[in-house]
């Protein structure tokens, strides 16, 4: 049995649904925040995910960080030693998708050559008529940048656990590969 711990940063533009996702995940879908509140600085929540077909688990320390640039300097330190990234955009807001490149750039400069598993998440699939970012387009962009991809509707409680299951699996895989490397050293 292995219990892994991962520092997970929730990144993305303001109002794409980062905090809503975090709260839903924390409460197993019991709490959807109907009113928008701007996250100032940072909120931390801790939750474990088990890895299917093993007795292993990954405990996520999820840093729900402010999307607004205003706070970015304060949050510089936060990006140090992160383990996984959950990058969220709003499928009805093209700007929020385009800015994912900017968020990813930030990650690259902080990760210092280390491979950081990440997932790109398109939120608000409930707003069918207002979609401007096509799934195919986003999926291709994610692939090009070495990210996993999924879509969800936090509001309709659809797929809100998927990003964390994807990240848990990747992080667990990374651990297993490292242990193989450690074995080969002596």
């Amino acid at each position, binding site marked *: 049995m292995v219990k*892994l711990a991962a520092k997970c940063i929730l990144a993305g533009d303001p109002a794409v649904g980062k905090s809503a996702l975090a709260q839903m995940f924390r409460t197993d879908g019991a709490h959807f925040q109907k009113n928008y509140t701007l996250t100032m600085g940072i909120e931390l929540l801790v939750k474990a995910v088990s890895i299917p077909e093993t007795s292993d688990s990954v*405990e996520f320390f999820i840093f729900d960080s402010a999307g607004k640039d205003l706070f970015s300097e304060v949050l510089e330190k936060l990006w140090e030693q992160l383990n996984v990234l959950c990058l969220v955009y709003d499928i009805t807001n093209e700007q929020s998708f385009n800015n994912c490149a900017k968020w990813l750039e930030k990650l690259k400069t902080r990760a210092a050559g280390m491979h950081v598993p990440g997932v790109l998440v398109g939120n608000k699939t409930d707003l069918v008529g207002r979609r401007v970012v096509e799934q195919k387009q986003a999926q291709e962009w994610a692939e090009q940048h070495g990210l996993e991809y999924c879509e969800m509707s936090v509001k309709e409680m659809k797929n809100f656990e998927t990003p964390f299951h994807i990240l848990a699996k990747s992080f667990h895989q990374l*651990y297993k590969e490292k242990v193989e490397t*450690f*074995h080969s*050293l*002596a």
Partner: protein
Amino acid sequence: MRGTDWCLSSAGAALVLATSSDEQHPAESVMDGNSETFWTTTGMFPQEFIIGFPRCVKISKVAIQSYLVRTLRIERSVSEDPVGFEECIEKDLEHTEGQLQKEEFPLPEFQATYLRFIIKSAFDHFVSVHRVIAEGAAENT
């Protein structure tokens, strides 16, 4: 005269604490004298382990075999319980791909009942520690 390695479980050393948990790679692996077995950290730093000696012993050299460790801090305590630690040394280690880090810390002879190894940062998400050695003169009784 050949020194004793006080960190060996066969010399009476015992593990007091380790912060991470993979049953297959427990921290006891750093005390078995075998470089092939190892302790793994399981995510997020700092990570640490504490080794207790059977009594207060004299140590003149500490060494570690590890992989991917960046900043390492070693502390000692002379208390009966594992409290009141003070710094022995803190150092940034080098990393070479595919090669075990073998680092020696020559220290002025000191006494200790416990040694604490803190991995403050790393070159990757996980590190391994294969052996720790605390060499000192075997006691003349």
